């Protein structure tokens, strides 16, 4: 038996995403948190099924979904965008403060600083 080959080499990105290179909506940052809805996996392509199954366990960032499933982040975004449209995936409230809102941005930075200091 031949050992399984690296699947990244076998699946060309444009095949996985049905030829679309970019998400229909640019709602995803690499750290947007996503989680599966209670909907189930329905009739989905294998790639999308893998994403939904992974995301049924809890929230993960877009980058983590890509990392766990060996997908380029650009491809993961397209697939996740479709899955949000089809109601399988939802984003966890995650609007990092608008940097233009100085005081909210500062509050966020302080939280980060406090969290880091607590680790020393």
């Amino acid at each position: 038996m031949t050992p399984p080959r690296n699947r990244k080499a076998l699946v060309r990105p444009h095949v996985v995403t049905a030829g679309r290179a970019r998400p229909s909506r640019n709602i995803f940052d690499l750290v947007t948190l996503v989680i599966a809805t209670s909907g189930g996996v329905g009739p989905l392509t294998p790639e999308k099924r893998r994403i939904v199954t992974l995301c049924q366990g809890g929230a993960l960032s877009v980058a983590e979904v890509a990392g766990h499933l060996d997908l380029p982040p650009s491809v993961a975004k397209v697939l996740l965008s479709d899955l949000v449209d089809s109601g399988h995936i939802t984003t966890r409230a995650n609007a990092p403060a608008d940097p233009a809102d100085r005081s909210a941005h500062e509050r966020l930075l302080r939280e980060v600083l406090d969290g880091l200091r607590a680790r020393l």
Partner: protein
Amino acid sequence: MDSVLASDRRYVRDTVRTAVKLLVVGHFAVGKTTFVGTLSEIRPLRTEERMTQAGALVDDLAGTPDKTTTTVAMDFGRLTLSDELVLYLFGTPGQSRFKRLWEDLARGALGALVLVDPNRLEHSFEVMDLLETHGLTYAVAVNQFDSAPVYPLQEVREALDLLPSTPLVTCDARDPISATRALIALVDHLLTPGQEYA
């Protein structure tokens, strides 16, 4: 099954409401992967995008399987900072020719830590230029390799032509306390008013 998954440490805690990111940048072998791995609570993950040599994202290879491509890897890790907040650290070489990748990474980032090797300071200029172009505030950390000579920080500062306000610290990317201190220097700096590049 559900409860097994729910306690899976891979996942972000249910109470988390905000995710932020910081970039850890620097040239090849400066210690980015080590730094991210030292601090991450999850096994660090790696993603790869295929790019053409010219820097275009390869997502349309149909019919051109021979096109020369190169793989750009990015390592990242996660730190839960409180019940409501997680921090992601993205390690990336930050090459200017991979513009679209870089923009994606830089968008929404709070700031960047530039790791430098005092023996190869000139290799750090490209990424510092890139950060300034994108208006990302940064601090610089000298990753001190045991075998390397120790240079006075003032000499490093001059060689890198840093602004007087840019923090410059020494760190050991393998040591969690030292790596955390370097991030603290960065976030402290981000909190100082007036750090945006014109």
